[in-house]
């Protein structure tokens, strides 16, 4: 038998089940109190600082950050359970998302003591928001081709270039800007890259909105015009940017947001079937089965990360499968119920699902890139 690409999931810890119930009860209260309406793709599209702070007050933001940095010293698995609950219900969590998912772990792994003390407490409190500073106009999947340039000056670096598809930059406090700090060597394309903590209110930073086809503003273009970044805001090692950004992508790719972005649609379809307003299409059942399998797989990836393993391959498998499934679910709802659905909430979810779906299999590594990662893992490349 061949080795498994995704490890077997462990047996659930009763303490995690208890935590799950606690989060679920809190979310129900919040919905009942009208604090938020469950939505689609809310980890990207629903920015609600008050709700993020309310979660932080309960200790559900920055969970894995050590207590000494204002966090809660909880495990990856505890964070996973809370994250799943937030996503499954479609809670507005965009304000904390990037900070909690990848900025905090990257700071913990590569940041200086001063950087950790400066940023981590604010992240755990839900006060500091982060964005992603990777993609550029000419660099999408081929991240090593970034052209943003970092030039060393007295006391720091001057950064110039353009970052693109920067979700939430207009609300965010900072991003890790990936820049070329040494000229491109075609034989060693991954060398000469570095990451810089760019405070987005710095002089020389211009943030321009890019509207999505829905008319919503999530994306931005971030122009960096000779932006000064002091030495103490260099993340990790100069020249080690590729390794660091790959590690950051590991956090970005591996979570349950890669299969749960449209989960609310499934709940609404099932309710519709129960009250007779939606046809009892067997494809709804098939989707429920796949979601059950994906929940197991995503759990296994998180457990693998908790054990300190390299989960790149397993995460790629889950992301390819999960993003296709969550997108197909949006499409299925459109086929069965449509934007014309009598149930206004379902109609709204269908509309949002159709608008957001194209991004699912692009962001965080396209399915095409990830299939290549899987093929490499199988020894084909």
């Amino acid at each position: 038998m061949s080795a498994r690409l995704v490890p077997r999931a462990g047996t659930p810890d009763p303490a995690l089940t208890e935590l799950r119930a606690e989060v679920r009860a809190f979310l129900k209260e919040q919905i009942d109190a009208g604090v938020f309406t469950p939505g689609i793709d809310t980890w990207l599209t629903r920015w609600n600082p008050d709700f993020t702070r309310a979660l932080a007050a309960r200790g559900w933001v920055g969970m894995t950050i050590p207590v000494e940095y204002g966090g809660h010293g909880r495990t990856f698995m505890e964070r996973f359970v809370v994250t799943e609950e937030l996503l499954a219900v479609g809670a507005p969590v965009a304000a904390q998302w990037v900070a909690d998912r990848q900025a905090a772990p990257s700071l913990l792994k590569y940041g200086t003591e001063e950087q950790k003390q400066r940023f981590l407490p604010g992240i755990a409190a839900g006060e500091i928001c982060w964005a992603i500073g990777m993609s550029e106009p000419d660099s999408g999947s081929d991240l090593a081709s970034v052209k943003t340039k970092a030039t060393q000056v007295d006391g720091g670096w001057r950064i110039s270039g353009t970052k693109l598809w920067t979700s939430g930059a207009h609300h965010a406090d900072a991003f890790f800007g990936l820049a070329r700090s040494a000229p491109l060597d075609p034989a060693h394309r991954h060398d000469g890259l570095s990451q810089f903590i760019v405070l987005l209110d710095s002089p020389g930073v211009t943030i321009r909105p890019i509207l999505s086809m829905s008319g919503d503003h999530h994306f931005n273009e971030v122009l960096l015009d000779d932006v000064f970044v002091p030495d103490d805001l260099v993340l990790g090692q100069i020249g080690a940017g590729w390794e660091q950004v790959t590690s950051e992508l590991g956090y970005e790719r591996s979570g349950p947001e890669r299969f749960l972005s449209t989960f609310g649609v499934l709940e609404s379809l099932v309710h519709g079937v129960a009250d007779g307003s939606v046809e009892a299409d067997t494809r709804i059942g098939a989707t429920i089965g796949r979601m059950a399998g994906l929940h197991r797989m995503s759990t296994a990836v998180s457990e693998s990360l908790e054990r300190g393993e390299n989960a790149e391959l397993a995460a790629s498998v889950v992301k390819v499968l999960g993003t296709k499934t969550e997108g197909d679910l949006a499409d299925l709802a459109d086929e069965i119920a449509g934007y014309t659905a009598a149930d206004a909430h379902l109609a709204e979810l269908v509309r949002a699902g159709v608008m957001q779906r194209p991004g699912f299999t692009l962001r965080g590594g396209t399915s095409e890139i990830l299939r290549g990662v899987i093929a490499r893992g199988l020894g084909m490349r």
Partner: protein
Amino acid sequence: MSGQDALQSTELRDFAQMLSEVFTSGDDHRIGEVVELDRALWSTLTELGLDRLTGSEESGGSGAGWLEAALLLEAAGSAAAAVPVAENDLLAGWLLEQAGLDAAPAVRTAAVLDADGRARHVPWARFADSIVVLWESPQGWQVAEVARGDVEIVEAVNLAAEPRDHVCVDLSALSGRDVPAGTVDEFRYRGALVRALATAGAMDRILELVVDHTTARVQFGRPLGKFQAVQALVADIATEASLVHAAADGAVDAVVAGGFGDASTRFAIAAAASCAGHAASVVARNAHQALGAIGFTMEHELHRHANRILSWRSEFGTVASWDSELLAAAGEAEEVWALITGGPAR
């Protein structure tokens, strides 16, 4: 502790290692013939106590549980093993235990009979020493063991030429033992789970065959596997196979935790059967596409596995029936998420 994979004990690892030595793939073609019972393999299984793995030790079984059975079924599935290991132990053997009947060593299969004493597509019936039958009499559900000689058999096969015979038994000549009414339901869930596990194993072997072929065969001056289009085909086989493993493991863990009567176990088995059934379409299609014409010749190994997974998905209920069951379960639970993760609904 959290994250402890149920298979990480030394005993289970050793057991998996032994299975990989017992079940080997690729050496048995039987071109153009109906698959025959592999009696040499069966006697090896008997010697090792694998023929009645989950039977109680008092009744001559090995006293193992579903974790071990799952490993056995995956190994047998990956080798396209021509032995009724699932039927003998997890269906027939289990039915006999339910009925309090003795089970001397034998090759057994099992069937649910209709009111006329008939059952269609009974696995391995022509090669079995006896068939353990389950039927509903006016007094309730009954179990009896019937020697093959007392069964009228019309030979038939599934898509992979595995024996799936139609049987007819004279009910008036049978004296059965009472079993609980839920037995017939459990029979179906057991059947679906054993097929999902075997499917997971078979998909592993298909993936191996496809990776071997696409890395070895050269076209346009490079191995097929260097083409991104081919990589995508193979990656999707791998992702679907991983999903089937995850769903089937989930069902096994549910059985271990709560038994077959538990609603969450039944949901997990339905999910595994649904995932395995739908994944079979992608895995078989992509594997054939990657293998080219050689892949659907009689002499190539691929069809043995591809046609098995396409057969197995229909054998204890159609794929659509499992999808419907999942939808119905969600409707009853009122919340899909609570059904998938356990715990109270919002």
